């Protein structure tokens, strides 16, 4: 190899790599010092400047911790920015991990609003006194079943528990009338579930509250004895049904709706809503709350108000296939109406007691 000929080019390449790295450090350093000047009305949720940092003090920009992904709520927050003129900074993550983050931050949290995937994480924060009471007018729009009884969080959209089943291997006549029928040995090896998933744990928590610890233990033991296939997520479980790994899966109603939208109507899975107020058709809520440490409570209240507006409720129905929780709003035409589902009588606040559920699920071998 002619090294002499290559030497100058090699040098310039080397300089290039170093320049890029130094540039990146400078960029990182600069955006540290940059003041939080997110312009009002622009799409600030895509702006990486740390407008929500703890030292920033009050500003016009709202900081939202969202346990619902950017895929789901990003467009909605942008609509809110346009409608209200309030810039929003969003941090997306797992609801429980964000709850752990909020607990760690305590009253130093830069967050104004917490938008959680499920009621349990909201309940845990309410218990630690980190949430501020909401406006009674806003609370009045949502059925009392789907909010905190002290008004510290409000449900925004609803998710029904269902039994997703294979339309290739099962007909409607084969389906169980109650979720408790699934402990029958006839279902051995045919059930899929995601026991580490928050929605399933919320369901087990509801089971404990409504039927008692012993009934819940017996049900879990019955399911575990039927050797269920364990999936990491609800989507995996529904895909397991489609792939023929299992015949039925205990999931939320909307995962199938999304897979239908992605795969087309011939996708070989359907949702079964347990009839007659059965525990198996629990409806859980994704909800929002305002942090008591927020210095922008008015803007935060505007966002919560917006999440319960007709626009936002329609968005949830059409884009995420969830149930709108504000009275009078219609669900996706492919779903039974919310008031047609006979839900069990349960206070969703009680779903915060996850610790007991996790212990019970461990003792019965449902989770590690």
């Amino acid at each position: 190899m002619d090294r002499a000929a290559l030497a100058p080019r090699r040098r310039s390449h080397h300089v290039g790599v170093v320049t890029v790295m130094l540039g990146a450090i400078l960029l990182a350093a600069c955006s540290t010092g940059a003041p939080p000047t997110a312009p009002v009305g622009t799409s600030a949720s895509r702006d990486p400047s740390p407008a929500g940092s703890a030292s920033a003090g009050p500003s016009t920009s709202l900081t939202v911790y969202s346990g619902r992904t950017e895929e789901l709520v990003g467009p909605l927050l942008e609509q809110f920015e346009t409608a209200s003129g309030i810039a929003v900074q969003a941090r997306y993550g797992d609801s429980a991990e964000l709850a752990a983050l909020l607990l760690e931050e305590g009253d130093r949290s830069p967050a104004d609003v917490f938008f959680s995937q499920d009621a349990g994480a909201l309940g845990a924060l309410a218990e630690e006194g980190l949430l501020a009471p909401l406006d009674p007018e806003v609370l009045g729009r949502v059925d009392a079943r789907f909010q905190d009884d002290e008004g510290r969080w409000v449900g925004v959209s609803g998710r029904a528990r269902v039994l997703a089943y294979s339309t290739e291997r099962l007909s409607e006549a084969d389906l169980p009338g109650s979720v408790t029928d699934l402990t029958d040995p006839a279902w051995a090896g045919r059930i899929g579930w995601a026991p580490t998933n928050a929605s399933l744990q919320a369901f087990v928590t509801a089971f404990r509250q409504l039927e008692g610890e012993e009934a819940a233990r017996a049900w879990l033991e019955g399911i575990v004895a039927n050797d269920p296939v364990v999936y990491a997520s609800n989507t995996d479980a529904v895909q397991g049904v489609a792939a023929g790994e299992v015949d039925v899966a205990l999931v939320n109603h909307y995962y199938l709706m999304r897979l239908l939208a992605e795969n087309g109507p011939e996708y070989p899975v359907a949702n079964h809503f347990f009839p007659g107020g059965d525990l198996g058709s629990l409806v859980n809520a994704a909800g929002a709350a305002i942090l008591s440490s927020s210095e922008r409570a008015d803007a935060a209240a505007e966002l919560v108000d917006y999440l319960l507006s007709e626009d936002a409720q329609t968005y949830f129905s059409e884009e995420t296939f969830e149930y709108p929780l504000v009275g009078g709003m219609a669900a996706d035409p492919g779903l039974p109406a919310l008031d047609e589902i006979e839900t069990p009588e349960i206070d969703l606040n009680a779903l915060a007691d996850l610790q007991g559920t996790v212990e019970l699920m461990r003792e019965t071998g449902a989770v590690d």
Partner: protein
Amino acid sequence: MALPAVLRRPAVVTSDRRPPVALLAVVAVIGVLAMLPLAYLVIRAAGADERALELIARPRTVELLISSVVLSAGVGLGAMLLGVPLAWLTTRTDLPGRRAWTVLTVAPLAVPSYVLAFALIAGLGPRGALSGALESLGVERLPSIYGLPGALLVLTLATYPYVLLATRATLMRADPALEEAARSLGDSFGTAFRRVTLPLLAPAIGTGALLAALYAISDFGAVSILRFDSFARAIHVQYRSSFDRSGAAALALLLVAAAFALVWAEARVRRRRAALQVPHGARRVARVVPLGRWRWAAVAFCATVVGLALLLPAVTITYWLVRGLGQGEPLQLLAHPIRDSLVAGAAAAAVAIILALPVAFLVVRYPGRLASIAERALYGAYAVPGIALALALVFFSLNVVPFLYQTLALLVLAYAVRFLPQATGTTRAALMLIGPRVPEAARSLGRSPFQVLRSITLPLLRPGLLAGAALVFLSTIKELPLTLLVAPTGFGTLATQVWGAANEGFFARAAAPAAVLMLISLTSVALLLRDGERSA
């Protein structure tokens, strides 16, 4: 193992010298940064109540710990079995398409392990593509990919490039004179490789295998998708389902203890071998080994690894993308996550290299108790579960440097400290090959220490530094827990986009960012490897 006498000479003639205080101070600061997450875990675990202690005392805890150690050791071993042959084939032989294989075999480093897990299930799982093809041939049931086999396969494929890159950097630096001398004295190729080449490579192989093993012990995404009950998975379940940070912290401390046991074991194995120094002298390009009739077997080996680790995820992502576009899914605008990924990755790589240099100098030039403590302390931030590290940073930054909380600077520092062992490993291995005499000669000829560093040591270190930078860059752009919890609010990388979409089952929308992530990684790997070859 009996080493040739020439190799038994201790590497460092200056070990009786005391390290400069400034160097010690710098390394101490870096070590303290890396140990911060452990301090946090101790603080949190101290608050554990009786219920949390009962949780730890269960027999199940021991079972989980054992399965994690088995997984981790298996992945370390697997990474060696793939990484060392691939490094040798792509640097020393007439392998057909050698340059292309070089890039392709390193590139799987860019595939997030959770994407690889999804892809392997799509390809090899029950009713997957392979099973479908075999069904028509009469094969009814494939062995299950779930559990330990799948976790071992995915994590080995995701981590063997650590061994490959470290080994490669050493192979390209090592003077081939010793091997050739052994051959000329009558050793067969195999004997010369075992007695001369392998001992030379041992530090690099050990470093790479340790990185692979520790990656496996703290991985959460792939093991949960593949339904393997590892200890890290149990810790995440604890964090996510009970809002109990104390019990989770106590469990995480146990995991870190297991990780440090692996670090200690690797150090012991390394110490058993004499610390080697290769007379640098006038380095020549190694003779190309003709593979002869083995060349197509070698190509098949490379193709199998690349097929599983790179092609399968690429095909899966393409399938998601095409199917999504067919269903009318719009292509997302990716400019902002691409910029965030590049800025975070490049800055973290640069900071990691800057931090790695003093540590590697201390370890190689002034070996001893202090140096080995400092080097091992770095694994503190590497082996803790990501969420524990993230919460530790929240705790310390809010209490000590609140003005840095949720800033990009803190995030970059966090990445750099997290992935620092990747950079120190390759830097140390490269530094060991230089030996102190060349810089000493330059000093005696009147050069200042800075001039020596700039004109002698750094250029010689370049392949090691660049390999380290590449590792940190690639690790950073696919990192999740730190990015999600510690980044400035609104900051999002390609990896968080993939996570957000795939987590909700929107595989079609996960495809575009995943494809771009893999393209960026391939490009950076190609650029860095080309640079490495030129300078060699």
